């Protein structure tokens, strides 16, 4: 029992961080809102399903195409919606959330709600650790999840583009006066974040059927992880994922699965009262210290 909880808690945590990475890249690291994130995630799932089942594409081509498509959609979202309200945070949030709502509810309207919408796993089979069986898909999730978290940290600290992402979040005018085209960088950031949402979707969705409602859960979970970890910190994303991931698993095991969903919401509440900048938050740390 405990062993199962520990192992599946670990996998659950990696899933959470995988879900949160793209959101963290756009909202946390570059300071651009993309609250259509959950919709992008679900859209990528349906896109893969359509590519495979309606256009009979090979699986990996469908995956790559879906990631590119979602990233492109992110860029379009920036170019046609966000750019017009850029700099007005509340408007950014409302506009992107509205777009997300429209996308998700469009899928519901079109009838994408039945159980036939499932994605194939990468490889079939399972391994045994102790007395616990873990299927290959979850191993893929763990592997890719860890690789992406490390990759994202290195990207934002050691590449020009990654540094520019962090620059526009900290001081846009200074970035502009150093030759960084902040509008372009912000657009790329939204595209990258959406692409990461698609990567998370094709890894995670094969565990069950794709449902429209999961789009909202994904957004809430991603937001919870980013707020608790602290905006702009990749280490924070990972630590917060493990906190919430294990908290969810323990709640599931000891109080029943219907309590699981409120864990992330309660966690947001507590962290906003106790340490508003998040565990590893940098955004407000300086002001709090002074």
């Amino acid at each position, binding site marked *: 029992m405990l062993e199962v909880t520990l192992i599946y808690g670990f996998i659950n945590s990696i899933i959470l961080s995988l879900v949160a990475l793209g959101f963290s890249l756009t909202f946390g690291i570059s300071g651009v809102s993309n609250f259509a994130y959950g919709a992008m995630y679900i859209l990528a799932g349906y896109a893969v399903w359509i590519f495979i089942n309606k256009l009979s594409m090979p699986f990996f081509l469908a995956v790559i195409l879906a990631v590119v498509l979602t990233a492109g959609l992110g860029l379009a979202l920036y170019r046609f919606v966000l750019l*017009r*309200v*850029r*700099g*007005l945070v509340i408007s950014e949030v409302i506009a992107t959330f509205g777009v997300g709502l429209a996308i998700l509810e469009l899928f519901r309207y079109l009838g994408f709600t039945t159980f036939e919408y499932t994605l194939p796993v990468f490889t079939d089979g399972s391994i045994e650790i102790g007395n616990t069986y873990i299927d290959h898909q979850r191993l893929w999730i763990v592997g890719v999840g860890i690789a992406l978290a490390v990759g994202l940290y290195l990207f934002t*600290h050691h590449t*020009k583009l990654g*540094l*520019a992402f*962090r*620059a526009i979040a*900290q*001081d846009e*005018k*200074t*970035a*502009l*006066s*150093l*030759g*960084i*085209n*902040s509008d372009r960088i912000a657009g790329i950031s939204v595209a990258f974040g959406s692409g990461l949402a698609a990567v998370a979707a094709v890894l995670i969705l094969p565990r069950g059927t794709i449902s429209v409602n999961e789009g909202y859960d994904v957004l809430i979970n991603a937001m919870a992880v980013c707020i608790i970890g602290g905006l*702009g910190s990749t280490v924070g994303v990972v630590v917060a994922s493990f906190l919430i991931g294990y908290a969810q698993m323990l709640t599931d095991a000891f109080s029943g699965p219907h309590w699981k969903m409120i864990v992330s919401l309660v966690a947001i509440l507590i962290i906003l009262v106790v340490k508003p900048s998040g565990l590893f938050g*940098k*955004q407000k*740390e*300086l002001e709090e210290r002074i």
Partner: protein
Amino acid sequence: MLEVSNLMVFYENALALNDFSMKVEQGNIIAIIGSNSAGKTTLMNTLSGLILDTKIKEQRKGGERITLYGTIRFESEDITNVQPYDRVKRGMVLCRERHPIFPESDLVENLKIAGYLQKSSEVSAGVDYVFRLFPTLVRLKSRKAGFLSGGEQQMLTIGMALMVKPKMLLLDEPLLGLSPLMQNTLVDAIKKIRAETGLTIVITEQFARPILPMIDHGYIIENGMLTMEGSGIELMDNPEVKAAYFGV
């Protein structure tokens, strides 16, 4: 190298710069001296193009209406409507007032971000140059820039601008809020930059005393209007300047 003619800037109906013209020759140090609200920062933001960004942002939120008239020519090309990041590519870099840095990144990372337009090999050479120019910064390498003192941040801002390898450096009130000792350090550094790189420098400042001795040409502005111009020595000998800025 830089030619500003008949520049006028309105915030709503308030006139921030009134028919301002100036010329900057290659390799010169030029100063624009004026008291608070004389239009110094507006001038710098207009020269660097940042005002175009502010204008759009204000328009989006339905804020202040900013209107520009006049022309700015840089290396005999009209850059009046060129975006700020493109002006940087053309070789014109601004250090904004109150030493804005990236507070959450450490000092070296700030310099790396500033090297955005350079090749990686040039970035490390640039960092070395900044450390040679400001040896005090070396031991603060891995400190978060937000925790540096005002003077250290000002050195860093100038260092970041130099990372871009500009042809023309615009300094907006580099001495603001610094101790006289730190002011002298910075003035020495500016002289050194000019001597070593032959960079063209435009400074706005309200502390005339440390600035006037090193400039080739100076402009005095009041309420957005040019009231006087001349060489550094001419300005220092002028009784009105003496009364207003030296307290004699």
